[in-house]
């Protein structure tokens, strides 16, 4: 304590001062962005939530009216439910499938590069273009999926026009699109596992299944944790697919949080209300990440 006070009087050496100046020069664009495009907007958004700003006139303070309206807004709850439904299915299924693909690719066999390329093509294609493509596949009259069902003597589906099928269809499209990205992450994680561990297990006579549960899975938990967090955050922001294909319909079956925020803020120009909704989404995201963060000690194994 006392030492610190007397120490702070010392002049800063010239080379340290210089390095600080240089470092902040290098950082200046990013810091400007951090303050101007993230920190300030987060604060501004908070205050906007308590106003009735309509993007044109003056913003009036309305207290908790937006919050109360939100709690009573059936469409908001529907959007929240849909988003949770989307996340709860697409994240675990997508992760399991991409882990399976990564494990299949993580073998010294010919042609693995070719398969990896194929699985990555949907990742680099725009969501708009791939959504349209699936719109064609799922067309009730000329779509390939219904043709396939017909060949198998199964009843046809309305897919995106069917209240019960629309969300599962959107989920399927999203899993198909994002599979390759998580696969690459898992592949990197798998390649980081020390081979000696497997050799030791083999000497002990472990089966492949035991190897998977006792070596691969525990050693992969940091990757799984990372993929889980980024997938949760991004799946909560699902928008493009529903914008292109369903516009939130049929009967709000595919309306998502971001879709509703966009609609309220930028189509109806109720910016204050949209801000309140964005903040609700922010809190939910933070809550999910916090829960992940707090519980990671129980299952994430760092070397």
């Amino acid at each position, binding site marked *: 304590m006392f030492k610190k006070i007397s120490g702070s009087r010392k002049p800063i050496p010239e080379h340290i001062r210089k390095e600080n100046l240089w470092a902040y020069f290098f950082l200046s*664009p990013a*810091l400007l962005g951090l303050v101007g495009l993230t920190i300030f*907007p987060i604060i501004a958004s908070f205050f906007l939530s308590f106003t009735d700003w309509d993007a044109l006139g003056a913003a009036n303070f309305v207290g908790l009216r937006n919050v109360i309206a939100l709690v009573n807004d059936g469409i908001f709850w529907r959007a929240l439910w849909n988003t949770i439904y989307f996340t709860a299915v697409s994240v675990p299924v997508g992760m399991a499938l991409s882990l399976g693909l990564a494990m299949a690719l993580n073998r010294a066999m010919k042609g693995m590069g070719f398969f990896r390329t194929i*699985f990555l093509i949907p990742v680099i294609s*725009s969501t708009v273009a791939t959504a*349209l*493509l699936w719109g064609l596949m799922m067309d009730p009259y*000329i779509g390939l999926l219904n043709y396939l069902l017909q060949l198998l003597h199964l009843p046809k589906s309305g897919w995106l026009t069917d209240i019960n099928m629309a969300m599962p269809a959107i989920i399927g499209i999203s899993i198909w699109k994002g599979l390759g990205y998580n696969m690459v992450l898992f592949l990197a994680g798998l390649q980081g596992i020390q081979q000696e561990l497997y050799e030791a297990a083999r000497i002990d006579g472990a089966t492949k299944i035991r190897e998977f549960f006792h070596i691969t899975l525990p050693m992969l938990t940091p990757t799984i944790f990372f993929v889980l967090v980024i997938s949760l955050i991004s799946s909560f922001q699902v928008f*493009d697919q529903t914008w292109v294909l369903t516009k939130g319909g049929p009967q709000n079956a595919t309306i998502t949080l971001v879709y509703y925020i966009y609609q309220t803020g930028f189509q109806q120009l109720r910016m204050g209300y949209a801000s309140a909704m964005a903040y609700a989404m922010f809190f939910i*995201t933070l809550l999910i990440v916090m829960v992940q963060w707090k519980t990671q000690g129980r299952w994430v194994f760092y070397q």
Partner: protein
Amino acid sequence: MATESIAKLDRSKILVNIAVYGLLIVAAIIMMLPMMWMVSTAFKKYRDTFLIPPMWIPPYFSLQNFTNVFEIVPFANMMFNSLKVAILSTLGQVISCTMAGYAIARMKFFARNTIFLVILATMMVPYQVVMIPIFIIMKNIGWVNSHNALIFPSFLGGAFGIFLMRQYFMTLPNELEDAARVDGANPWQIFWEIILPNSKPALIALATLSFTNYWNDLLSPLIYLNKMELMTMPVGISLFKGMHGTEWNLLMAAALLNIIPAALIFLFTQKYLVEGISLSSGIKG
């Protein structure tokens, strides 16, 4: 005895390999079949899109969809706008993220860890939380209905890119800078003449990922652009669907034209892109 068990081991290994190939082929077909169908439909005449059973090879091979797309909507204009926004934004990301990543990875300065952590934490902030205030800022500057609103923010860094570059710079050996420092080079010279030439893989990865992101972005252009002559391809195509909802041959031609540039870049930079995605997880390097 020993040779017998080795033979047995080999046989089971071959069986597993065949099973894995089988699985991968099925997965590849599921991934690629819709893409093939898009290509096929893009070359069909309108009436042939209704054929049952569906035909993979169009009975009449037509290039007309591609020319029609350019006539019905100002598609060439949209392509140019998309290219302009994506290229300039990529440039912005590469410059700003590389600079910030370099400082965080290789320099000592006041509050370094705090700044790094805060930047990382912003990854958890959904864009939707900040998009309305940023819209207000852009409106006040007068950049609504201007590409500047899309391009300018890319010059101010971003958590993903900064982290990616930081991870890469951490892997470079210290000796690289030491010699230059002894010769009296300043940090900018070291960065420009020594670090950057040694960072091509990471730069290519960041550039490819950024380009793909901006090329494919829908939400920002949707918010900022109302004028047809300013539209980028993803918005244009989604509007196109509103106007010609069932002319799938036209829609697929438009979608294909949107995918091809990104796919071409991907094919050439694939190795770096994969490396970059891995690096961004913090697991490698």
